[in-house]
């Protein structure tokens, strides 16, 4: 099945969502990512037993820290999708993009001066 998904996302592949650390999400937002969607396997079907459950806890913790820092936690979301569920994947991505679009660009990127401005103020 070939399905078109939005082109304004970048897919980063990891061996398992259990590989994802809190720092990865934090750095992504620090570097200007508008949103991060973590797509893990369905709960109970992790090839490494509980990688997706660990990811879920880390995502929740990161959302809490982001919230404390005054950053919209909705920019980070985790979903569980079966490897063969392309239709659901496309729908989830579109939904995430809608959420992020409603929130607007990452405020950090907006306030960060560009390197050119730093060199020639």
């Amino acid at each position, binding site marked *: 099945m070939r399905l078109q998904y939005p082109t304004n996302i970048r897919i980063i592949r990891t061996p398992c969502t259990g590989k994802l*650390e*809190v*720092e990865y999400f*934090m*750095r992504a*937002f*620090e570097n200007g990512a508008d949103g991060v969607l973590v797509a893990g396997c369905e709960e109970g079907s992790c090839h490494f037993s509980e990688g997706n459950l660990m990811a879920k806890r880390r995502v929740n913790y990161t959302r809490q*820290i*982001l919230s*404390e*820092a*005054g*950053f919209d936690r909705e920019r980070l979301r985790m979903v569980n999708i079966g490897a063969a569920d392309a239709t659901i994947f496309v729908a989830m991505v579109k939904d995430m993009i809608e959420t992020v679009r409603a929130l607007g660009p990452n*405020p*950090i990127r907006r*306030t*960060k001066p560009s390197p050119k401005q730093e060199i020639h103020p």
Partner: protein
Amino acid sequence: MIVAERKSIPELVDILKGHQKILVLGCGTCVTVCLAGGEREVSILSSALRIASNIGNHGFELEELTIERQCDNVFIETAAEIIERNDAILSLGCGAGVQAIAERYREKPVYAGLNTAFLGILEERGLWTEKCAACGACVLHQYGGICPITRCAKHMLNGPCGGSREDRCEVRPDRPCGWQLIYQRLKSIGQLDRLTTIAPPKNWEPSLGGGCRVIVREDHRI
């Protein structure tokens, strides 16, 4: 080990307001093990502070470093250069670590990034429990190795209080009754007779009642 937990980001932002160049200094010992102030937590907290600073326009410029042990001058020395070039230090060490850094750098503001909570152990993944109050006069031998000062919410030396339900503490129902544990433990090691001795009121002088505590070992002094 010493168990601590991170202060909230808004509280830390409030503490650090007015400073620009800030060193977030982690400690590689107890607070690393309790996932509060090690290298990883330094990195996460710095990211969060950068984000908060960016949004709130506080102008923080953060540097990150984790040393082996903050409560030891030998290790503090290894951070001398980076400490010197920053305006303030946010220490993710325990209370002793924060004070050791502050004593060493008298001209430099040093702030605590953690709330030092207790002396405890990792009971299960992600769960730490208090085991010792550092009261200075250990009575563990009398109670089968279970401390009535920390494990009993009422610190009773001649317990139990009678308020437990099933085996749960009436003050904190999520924790077992310390005296139930003491009884079971003494029974299993055949020392129930220890409970027939009435314990006199505890002398709290070796604890904080006598002021800041000091231990001197003359044989090690120069």
